């Protein structure tokens, strides 16, 4: 009874119903698998429908609790606040661990309704595995219940982490979780096929799902990178942070999987490997979740996560799906029909093999890097690896990928003569040599980078040519999705090398109103604009290039009201050829304050202040007064130099030990203004001085970066995604057509 009073029942009951209906779903499908030809399937389907409904209800309840700001609920109290605008209540939904598992499950059960319809005869087996993948998430929520109530009703919540109060954070996480949820689908199809010993149809049915998962995850990664670039002020879109890697690794495995499924569809090859790819894609999501949610990386990641005590649970989930998966693959391996690799070297099939191996290596290397704190735990000092590791290792991989991509459009499955390839590739090659020459003329000197640019632009050119010729052909643009995606990869590679290999960055401190030369530009800090309504405090900086019209950038720098943290938002001036990126580091509003030890001097504007020492005889003997418990007066002997003339000054510091009051009569500075002693540091004999009425301009420290061709990174990703959409639509159509003619 006591437990019931600590929990918000409408939400908790929905979760408990979900447990009930998920188990009855399993039961119904199990009966069907055991041979029931009667109502078991209908029962299972209805149960699944109610399971999905319960989860939707639980999510709606949590959203409503956030909307009405019901701070009795611990989760609402932790992530929301009175001042949080309504649309950020959605961000609060997935700001914490519990809510993010909830949104993952929410999408998972909804997608499951569609999976059921596309599974065909394999439905019972697929749905048992898929429902299990939802139940493990549900178990986390039952254990870490988001509807737990506090014993009291606080007037206000803790508030949402200010970094998450951003439009991108409303949309990026839920899309990421659709991507995570969708990796379970090919896994369920693959495992069901192994369990049923039916090795023929699963690939065709899983293919569109694998493609759409790849698309959604890719979109989410794009958004995350864009958020990091636009609002975090890190200066980049990718930092090889564990949380970023946790989404990239499944995406690479997913890429391998769609290529493997393509090989199976076109050539009947890779029939064994595809099981492994589907397995790895899903397991890498679970492993990434374990890495980032269990607290093992807490010391190493910028997104620090606390340990909710979920480590064991997450390891158990990995074992629950991993071990039976390995068992099924191992025991069925020899039964899976496959074709031996008899392709000549210069053939599409061979290049696909090489490409999948290359991508697998990339995924494993990134996994190893991300796991470094665990791998090195056995040694004395657990370590992490820096971005330099990932950059170094992935450069040769990217080179190889670009090379393979460049030739693929001209290769036939049966193989080609080298002379034929050379003839076809001539014009794209000429174009890419021209691009490389332009890069070398610009400022690229590193031979590795030149080769990189040559291969990336060759990949772009050959795939573009093929995309165009395909689009003109009978299949239309719809059939060119794959090639179009490859064009995008070429564009991205060019963007990455230009924007991260040839960016120019400088950290500068600007004095208000004083122009300063930085990297061939003149920057002037114009003014600080205070907060106006919802518009945060920002800075105005004028940027002038020789021979161009000056423009203003407005980066933000403000103190969050709740946490007293300094927050920064960069401002970006984009042009087609480069981004000009300005991120504030520090702002000194110009209230002069000095802390000086004996004999030290400091500057304020055009004045130099030197501290000669304390005067204990300024008004009577200070030591004697102190011993007698009388008011103590200490003078600070200063030498103030202005315009070459030095004036001695002695501001006083008067302490009354009887009531602890402090009186600090100021001294008048030469040329106006006052100086007074704001504190005395007894341990090191230093004095703290404050000045008023002195013209002292404010100062702004900035990180200023020019990022050439960074637009190519975003543009290329868009092209990849458009190509992916075309391919996905095509594969879904194919399943429908094959079903209609009775092939599936």
């Amino acid at each position: 009874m006591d437990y019931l009073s600590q929990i918000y029942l409408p939400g908790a009951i929905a979760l408990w119903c979900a447990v009930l209906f998920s188990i009855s779903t399993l039961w119904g499908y199990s009966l069907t698998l055991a041979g029931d030809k009667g109502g078991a399937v209908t029962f299972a389907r209805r149960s699944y429908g109610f399971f999905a409904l319960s989860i939707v209800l639980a999510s709606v309840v949590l959203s409503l609790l956030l909307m009405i700001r019901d701070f009795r609920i611990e989760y609402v109290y932790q992530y929301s606040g009175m001042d949080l605008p309504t649309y950020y209540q959605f961000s609060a939904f997935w700001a914490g661990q519990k809510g993010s598992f909830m949104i993952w499950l929410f999408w998972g059960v909804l997608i499951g309704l569609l999976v059921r319809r596309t599974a065909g005869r394999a439905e019972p087996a697929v749905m048992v595995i898929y429902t299990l993948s939802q139940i493990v998430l549900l178990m986390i929520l039952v254990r870490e219940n988001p509807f737990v109530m506090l014993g009291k009703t606080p007037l206000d919540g803790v508030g949402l982490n200010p970094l998450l109060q951003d439009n991108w954070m409303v949309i990026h996480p839920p899309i990421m979780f659709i991507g995570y949820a969708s990796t379970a689908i090919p896994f369920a199809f693959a495992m069901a096929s192994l369990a049923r010993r039916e090795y023929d149809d699963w690939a065709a049915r899983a293919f569109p799902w694998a493609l759409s998962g790849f698309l959604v995850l890719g979109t989410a990664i794009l958004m995350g990178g864009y958020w990091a670039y636009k609002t975090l002020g890190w200066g980049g879109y990718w930092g090889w942070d564990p949380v970023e890697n946790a989404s990239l690794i499944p995406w690479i495995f997913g890429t391998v999987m769609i290529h493997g499924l393509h090989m199976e569809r076109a050539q009947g090859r890779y029939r064994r490997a595809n099981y492994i790819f589907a397995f790895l894609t899903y397991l890498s999501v679970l492993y990434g979740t374990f890495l980032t949610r269990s607290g093992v990386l807490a010391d190493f990641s910028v997104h620090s996560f606390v340990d909710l005590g979920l480590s064991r649970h997450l390891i158990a989930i990995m074992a629950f799906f991993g071990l039976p998966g390995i068992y099924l693959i191992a025991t069925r391996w020899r039964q899976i029909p496959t074709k031996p690799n008899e392709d000549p070297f210069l053939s599409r099939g061979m290049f696909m093999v090489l490409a999948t191996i290359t991508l697998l290596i990339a995924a494993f290397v990134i996994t190893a890097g991300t796991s470094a704190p665990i791998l090195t735990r056995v040694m004395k000092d657990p370590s992490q690896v820096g971005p330099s590791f990932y950059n170094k290792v992935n450069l040769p991989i990217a080179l190889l990928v670009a090379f393979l991509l460049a030739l693929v459009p001209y290769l036939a499955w049966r193989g080609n003569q080298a002379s034929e390839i050379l003839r076809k590739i001539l014009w794209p090659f000429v174009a890419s040599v021209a691009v490389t020459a332009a890069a070398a003329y610009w400022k690229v000197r590193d031979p590795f980078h030149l080769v990189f640019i040559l291969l990336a632009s060759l990949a772009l050119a050959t795939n573009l040519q093929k995309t165009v010729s395909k689009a003109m052909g009978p299949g239309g643009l719809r059939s060119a999705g794959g090639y179009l995606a490859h064009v995008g990869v070429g564009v991205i590679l060019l963007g990455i090398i230009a924007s991260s290999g040839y960016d120019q960055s400088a950290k500068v401190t600007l004095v208000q109103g004083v122009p300063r030369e930085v990297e061939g530009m003149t920057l002037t800090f114009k003014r600080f604009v205070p907060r106006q309504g919802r518009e945060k405090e920002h800075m105005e900086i004028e940027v002038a290039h020789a021979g161009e019209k000056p423009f203003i950038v407005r980066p933000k720098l403000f103190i969050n009201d709740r946490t007293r943290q300094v927050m920064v938002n960069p401002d970006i001036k984009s042009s087609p050829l480069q981004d000009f990126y300005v991120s504030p580091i520090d702002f000194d509003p110009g209230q002069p304050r000095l802390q000086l030890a004996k004999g030290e001097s400091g500057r304020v504007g055009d004045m130099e202040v030197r501290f000669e020492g304390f005067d204990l005889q300024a008004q009577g003997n200070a030591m004697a007064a102190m011993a007698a418990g009388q008011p103590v007066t200490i003078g600070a002997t200063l030498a103030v130099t202005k315009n070459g003339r030095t004036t001695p000054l002695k501001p006083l510091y008067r302490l009354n030990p009887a009531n602890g009051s402090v009186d600090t009569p100021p001294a008048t500075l030469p040329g106006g203004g006052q100086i007074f002693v704001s504190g005395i540091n007894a341990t090191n004999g230093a004095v703290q001085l404050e000045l008023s009425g002195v013209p002292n301009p404010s100062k702004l420290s900035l990180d200023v970066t020019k990022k050439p061709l960074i637009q190519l990174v975003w543009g290329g990703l868009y092209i990849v995604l458009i190509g992916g959409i075309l391919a996905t639509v095509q594969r879904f159509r194919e399943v429908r057509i094959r079903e209609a003619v009775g092939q599936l």
Partner: protein
Amino acid sequence: MKKNRLYMFGGVLLLAFAGFSFTAFKDSMTPYVSYERAREGDRIVQVAGGLEKGSSAYVDAKESLFFTLKDPKTGENLRVRYKGLKPANFEDAISIVAIGRYDESAKEFEADKLLVKCPSKYQGAEVKTYS
């Protein structure tokens, strides 16, 4: 025959890459070490500690931030130089991680990167990286 040679070539290439990744992995590893170990100055390491109050100062002439880290366990001190501007919320940090190498001649730890962990009312603490 030709195929076998191809596989061998691939195998050699893979091995070479594995070796390359392993060295890259070892090179970019930055172990957490004690101040004493860091003072040997033979490699890039991470040291952590609290900020000694009042010890930080930005020196314009050297374009660097100087501060003293204090190991909360041993009470040892380490003087750090960071070639960069003072990060936001630096003075309020509950712990600071400096990544870099000890400079024997200057008797200072030269940090290339700082991780500043600030107290936060949110789940865990807020960590920001500066490089």
